[in-house]
């Protein structure tokens, strides 16, 4: 044991003297590993960021909410067939609301885009959502100001609206929006509340650039197809009750949409789970491809190390002969060159990490993420491994040298 330790220390000294003696060459060889480690760690960080961003925004969909829609999430079915499905109607939603026993909350959701104006100020492309008094509790959001639609307001289709936080801050930078009159498209509404800031869905669609109005008013003013093309959002009492809630919901929908027992569903009940599955599949493929491509650069770096180790062994043939002459066994010679290759690669790994870390902070500005500790460890492990693997053949050759031939080498 003590033997090995002494030889290991000598191996370390041996490699550092060799690396120091050929600074330029070592630096250039290490560059391959540096580039490899930078790309692999950044790819790892980006993938991590993507996962994180996805999980954060998917959480906004709620694990316990079912989304009854015309189209299923995740696709996979014939789009033309799906397109021919009848729209979901307000009557469907009413039937659901009336008949459910398990579900906690049921709300109706429909939407369009319009310009929202207050005085001289306006915001374009705001999503106007027609819904009812159950909405806020279904999605589990809170209000920043005022109140949400009451049952009377939604049943009566009153001209009142609740603003998303982005819309509110654009139109009312220094004013209290409550009670103010705003124009949604050509129609006049009175603001009664502001929803708390929500963030965005998958980094694309802002959930705050919205205005909520009673669905019954929405149908009259924003759509000409009466009471159709809506979504029904249903909140299960708990995540464990999700499947039961879904089954009941399906039964109610099939009945009110007059489907024969053998007909397939002509509606989709979507849930967070589907998106997660789809994302995991796509994300997994992207991660595999990305890591494979960046891994190639590491592979090329490894080849560079192997090449330079062969040079190093040949250069030091005479030294190897001498070491063998004074009693170095094969394993020690092998170990010395393996340590040298590993040290080169580890240096590359650490330099690579030192470069990748600030770059990951740049990624962070686009995609909130940080270099995970696991990536750091894996990077170090990988560079060690690359060193050992690519150093093995040259080191093996060195260990097998005949001492007489090696000493005679010029």
């Amino acid at each position, binding site marked *: 044991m*003590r*033997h090995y330790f*002494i*030889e290991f220390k*000598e191996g370390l*000294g041996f490699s550092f*003297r*060799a690396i*120091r*003696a050929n600074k330029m060459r070592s630096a250039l060889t290490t560059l391959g590993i540096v580039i490899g480690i930078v790309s692999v760690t950044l790819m790892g960080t980006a993938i991590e960021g993507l996962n994180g961003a996805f999980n954060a925004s998917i959480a906004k969909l709620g694990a316990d909410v079912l989304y009854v829609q015309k189209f299923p999430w995740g696709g996979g079915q014939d789009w033309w067939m799906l397109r021919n499905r009848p729209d979901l109607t307000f009557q469907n939603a009413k039937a659901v609301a009336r008949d459910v026993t398990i579900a906690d909350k049921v709300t109706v959701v429909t939407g369009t885009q319009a310009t929202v104006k207050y005085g001289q100020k306006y915001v374009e492309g705001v999503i106007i959502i027609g819904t009812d008094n159950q909405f806020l509790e279904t999605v589990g959001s809170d209000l920043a100001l005022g109140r949400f639609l009451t049952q009377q307001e939604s049943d009566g289709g009153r001209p009142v609206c609740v603003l998303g936080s982005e819309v509110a801050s654009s139109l009312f930078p220094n004013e209290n929006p409550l009670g103010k009159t705003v124009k949604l498209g050509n129609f006049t509404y009175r603001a009664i509340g502001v929803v708390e800031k929500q963030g965005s869905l998958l980094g694309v669609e802002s959930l705050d650039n919205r205005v909520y109005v009673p669905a019954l008013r929405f149908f009259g003013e924003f759509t000409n197809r009466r009471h159709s093309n809506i979504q029904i959002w249903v909140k299960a009492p708990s995540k464990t009750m999700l499947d039961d809630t879904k089954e009941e919901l399906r039964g109610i929908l099939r009945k009110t949409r007059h489907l024969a027992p053998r007909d397939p569903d002509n509606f989709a009940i979507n849930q967070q789970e589907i998106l997660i599955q789809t994302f995991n599949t796509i994300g997994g493929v992207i991660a595999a491809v990305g890591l494979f491509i960046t891994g190639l650069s590491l592979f090329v770096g490894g080849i560079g190390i192997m090449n330079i180790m062969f040079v190093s062994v040949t250069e030091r043939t*005479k*030294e190897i*002969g*001498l*070491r*063998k*002459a*004074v*009693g*170095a*066994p*094969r*394993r*020690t010679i092998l170990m010395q060159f393996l340590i040298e290759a590993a040290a080169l690669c580890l240096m590359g790994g650490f330099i690579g990490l030192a470069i990748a870390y600030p770059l990951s902070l740049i990624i962070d500005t686009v995609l909130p993420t940080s270099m995970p500790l696991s990536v750091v460890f894996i990077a170090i492990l990988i560079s060690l491994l690359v060193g050992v693997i690519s150093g093995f053949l040259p080191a093996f050759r060195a260990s097998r040298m*005949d*001492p*007489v031939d090696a*000493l005679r080498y010029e």
Partner: protein
Amino acid sequence: MSVIKLSTITKMYQMGTEEVHALRGVSLEIGKNEYVAIMGPSGSGKSTLMNIIGCLDTPTAGLYELNGLNVSDMNDNQLAKVRNKEIGFVFQTFNLLARSDVLHNVELPLIYGGIGSTERKKMAKEALQRVGLGDRMTHKPNELSGGQRQRVAVARALVTRPSILLADEPTGNLDSKTGEEIMGLFEDLHREGNTIILVTHEADIAAHAHRVVRIHDGKIESDQPSKDRKVILTPTSQTA
């Protein structure tokens, strides 16, 4: 008991279809504290014999016993161990590690002998003092003269207190005055009880030994005590 016992050693190299017979049946015994010079023309097989005696190489046929131990059919790693414990080499071209200082060069055999750092440093310093280089321990080989480098090599050969010191033309790369100094050092080492085997072309150098073995074409031609033995007194030997 003799330290070295060679019985009809042959060494044959295969060069393509041609066979080169470097040694053709060499038998030789060398006892403890002998000082032997091996002489012969170029290509006669001196180095080949040295390499076999030094366990760097194994004979094609024949038996070699070193301190009563049969080394003729040991494997690589066993031979490495024997070299480490029993043999001290001095080469014509010094063969020092250029990037390491003198002390580390001398420590090298002890490292492979598994000796701990403090003990190792102590032994290496003693060996360097023995060859008169106690004040050059932190120098790099290229900061030393040829004679000093060869002294470092001698210290490295000595440091493990081996059974035999083997020197293959140790003065071949030195001028005659420096060569004489090194020979003086060998003389002292012999006087202290070391067994020394020396390969040389030069009669002058061989004259320092007590016994001269002449090789010709892979065979021992003659083996006799040195006639006009030269003894030189060096400053080190006078103080010692």
